[in-house]
């Protein structure tokens, strides 16, 4: 399944970017924009993911590995409302690692990955991402 993403931030030190799937961008934007605490924490987490040697830590973990894509999750407030953003990690031909926010889960009640979530993650593995450059219009799909 072909999907498009845009790069939101690029690391100054490493070959990494954080991006968002255009199809879910508005949903994620609305969610993050709903509270200053989400913006502040996400801002910090983006920095932590991009600018440090060890990419994985308490709030950002790789949870599934498939052939072409790895699935990871950003946990903004693990002890709070436990919202998660599932990401696809893909490498482009220039060996640039893109971490693409692909699915938002606002309320996650269980600590484990349930069957329902598992199914949703299975869908993500089939996504074939292409970067939408400046001037791209989703209506052209």
């Amino acid at each position, binding site marked *: 399944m072909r999907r498009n993403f845009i790069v939101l931030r690029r690391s100054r030190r490493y070959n990494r970017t954080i991006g968002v799937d255009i199809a879910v961008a508005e949903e994620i934007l609305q969610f993050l924009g709903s509270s200053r605490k989400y913006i502040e924490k996400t801002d910090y987490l983006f920095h932590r993911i991009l600018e440090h*040697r060890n990419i994985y830590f308490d709030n950002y973990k790789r949870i599934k590995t498939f052939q072409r894509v790895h699935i990871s999750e950003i946990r903004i407030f693990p*002890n709070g409302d436990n919202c998660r953003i599932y990401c696809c990690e893909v490498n482009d031909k220039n060996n640039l690692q893109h971490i693409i926010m692909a699915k938002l889960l606002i309320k996650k009640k269980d600590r484990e990955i349930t069957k329902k979530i598992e199914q949703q993650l299975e869908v993500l593995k089939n996504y074939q991402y292409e970067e939408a450059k400046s001037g791209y219009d989703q209506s052209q799909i």
Partner: protein
Amino acid sequence: MKKLKADMIKAKFDEIFENRTEQEQLKLDAYMLMAAFLSEIEIILEHEKISKKTLAQKIDTSPSYLTQVFRGDKPLNFMTLAKIQTALNIQFETRALKNQTTRPTSFKKTPFKKRQKEMASY
């Protein structure tokens, strides 16, 4: 579904993230400094297979406090950092570099009592 241009999406994300107050910027800078230390500590913990719970015991603090620090929910103070340094038998090296971009070099002075209140709320 509302169709948005990629440029518009990027601009909207930039807008919510870059629209920081002076205090929010300072807080972010403080947490980014903290992240530099935490990231290095995590590499050592992983390499030496030491859990955060064990580290908490070694430095005589509660595991929940340490978890909150590592999750970026609480600030790391320098006393705790010094204890971690001793417990892990490591030494941090620091280096200051001049910024390439211009940033404000001075902020308006905030009264000390107000600053204390703000720090307590972090």
